């Protein structure tokens, strides 16, 4: 272990209040963070034949199902874009959000055994989920770009879409989605620690939430006077923006975006504080 100065002193006492967040401690455990990412990644597809190919297959299958059900059967319009590409673009951000939400919301309960036996900053675990899902997102992004090029250069629909210059904002957009999924996930995780009802709720929330988000339909399908309702959902703008950046179609309004970013910031900060508060004694109640 690293050298400790002679006057090092650590005080354990009951904490009152909400603002005892020790981010320096999280930084000290950064090696653990990356080993947990590695563990998630390696362990997930051990003893499977296709291995990490599943990262590609899952969203592809989803898109095919959506194309058939929502495109062909329900005939929901896709802003004139090739349906397959439209769904893939919508699913990019959404899948990342949903996966991260589900793994972070399970943090406290799924790791109760380990948390009951050893101390490390608990925030390391949900952060590692965010990062390991980021790797999955990168793989999906690669797949998406392959399809994008195929549609662009080998089909007649090629002229109907294209990148917009706003694509340079994509890293920030991903940061926002990460922050939002982490914030909401931490809220759920903290609530689940004491009342397991929220475990059942989290699966339900994510399903409902997808239909409230313009993943399978464009925001333009919602009448203008009702669009503000859809925008109260902080995931609407990021998903719509992702389609807009890659395909050039979508309703992105700066004021709506500001609302989404504001809500994200609020959910992240309160989520982290609540998680941090609950985490201190949660092994007593789990």
């Amino acid at each position, binding site marked *: 272990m690293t050298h400790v100065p002679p006057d090092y*002193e650590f005080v354990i006492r*009951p904490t009152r209040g909400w603002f005892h967040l020790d981010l320096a401690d999280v930084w000290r455990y950064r090696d653990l963070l990356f*080993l947990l990412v590695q563990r998630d990644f*390696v362990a997930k597809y051990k003893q499977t034949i296709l291995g990490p190919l599943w990262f590609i297959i899952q969203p592809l299958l989803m898109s095919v199902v959506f194309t058939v059900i929502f495109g062909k059967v329900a005939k929901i319009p896709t802003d004139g874009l090739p349906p397959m590409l439209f769904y893939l673009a919508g699913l990019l951000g959404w899948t990342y959000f949903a996966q991260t939400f589900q793994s972070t919301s399970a943090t406290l309960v799924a790791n109760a055994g380990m948390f009951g036996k*050893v*101390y490390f900053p608990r925030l390391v675990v949900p952060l590692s989920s965010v990062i390991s899902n980021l790797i999955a997102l990168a793989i999906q992004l690669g797949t998406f770009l392959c399809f994008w090029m195929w549609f662009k250069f080998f089909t007649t629909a090629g002229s109907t879409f294209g990148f917009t210059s706003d694509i340079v904002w994509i890293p920030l957009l991903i940061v926002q989605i990460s922050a939002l999924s982490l914030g909401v996930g931490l809220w759920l995780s903290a609530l689940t620690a004491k009342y397991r009802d929220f475990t059942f709720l989290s699966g339900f929330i994510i399903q409902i939430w997808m239909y409230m988000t313009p993943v399978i339909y464009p925001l333009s399908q919602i009448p203008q006077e009702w669009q503000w309702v859809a925008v109260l959902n902080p995931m609407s703008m990021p998903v719509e923006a992702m389609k807009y950046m890659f395909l050039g179609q979508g309703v992105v309004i700066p004021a709506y975006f500001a609302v989404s970013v504001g809500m994200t910031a609020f959910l992240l900060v309160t989520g982290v504080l609540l998680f941090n508060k609950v985490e201190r004694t949660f092994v*007593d109640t789990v």
Partner: protein
Amino acid sequence: MWIPCKRRSLISIFVPMSRPIIEVESVSKRYKLGQFNAQTMREEVEQFFQRFRKKGEAAGIPHAPTNSSEFWALKDISFSVEPGEVVGIIGRNAAGKSTLLKILSRITEPTSGEIRIRGRVASLLEVGTGFHPELTGRENIYLNGTILGMTKAEVKAKFDEIVAFAEIDKFLDTPVKRYSSGMYVRLAFAVAAHLEPEILIVDEVLAVGDLNFQKKCLGKMQDISANNGRTVLFVSHNLTAINAFCHRGVFLDHGRLTEHGAISDVINAYVSSNLHNKDQTLSVFDAPRSGGDQKAITEAWVENKSGQVVNEALIDEPIFICYRFNADRILKNPGYGFGVNDMLGQRIFSFANYVTRGEPFADAKEGVVVCCIPKTRLLPGQYIISLGLGERGGVSVDYIEQALKLQIISRDIFGTGKMFEAAHGYVCVDGEISLRDA
């Protein structure tokens, strides 16, 4: 780099290093009993809003007591530990040992009180925390090491030592789910043993693994404290190990600190804590009988030399096995018998006045019989005491095969910190080994 530190190092020269490395000050821990349900949730929500309303006077206890029942796992515990000490924490089940360790390892927080820790802590409350069955031994060494607080570079530096200690080099790249349980435990302990914190907190992890490995672990821990001057807190039920390994002890009883000091005093306090009042003798009237014609034996108990009723005794401490009898007739030339069996029902020894006394006892209808054994020298463990009452001519009046339980507790009688174990027999006789000139 050293200039800003100069003042600090001067201070550390002139101020004697007598500051305790751990100071525990009136620490208490409360648990809530019962289920969490809609009512507890409503209470919490109400409390939350109440605190907002009365912000001015809000500096009270974080969770105001509610009508749900509570349990104090620790109550007002204070003690301190000097650097380099090895402290044994003893107590019976539910005495609060685990809670204390959890608070010291920052797994949970105390309800009130304060602990100052002047050094990095590594706690080993379980071997193999965070091991992932799908990962290989190599991957798990890194993962487990960082979970326990090492950096990746530190694990790397110790990697070869860890592998050598665990004796698993052939299986390094096999997933640990294919390991035998022995290999798994060896690997897990090896990682933990190579942590280098100032303070090491160890729960009864040594109870796992085979005997040889347990010895190796104890040896390693002794090494850590003796050669590296580290502070160790050690919880165990194995009093022989505690006695050999620890300098000082803390004895917890029902959440309170009963004794704190030199290890021999603490062990004595522990052993004598199970005393009952004289009137708390055990009624054996309803115990099943294995012989005799009546239920003449009514009560039985074991006393120590101060006349207190006990169910535990040190290996070399005098014990007095007593029973009260009340027969339906005057027994002519009565015979009083005692036997001690191990838990498997094997008789270790017997004691009876027909054998040990030249002259018979006077005729009696009732009375209290006492059998004094100056030193049982039984190996530490649980024993069952049998009681018998007879009459002239070998007539059995009453016989209880399983009347009392007695726990024999180890003491370092040879002054070596070692004691014979179950594999060595039943008793530990007096004696000595020496070499004679050829």
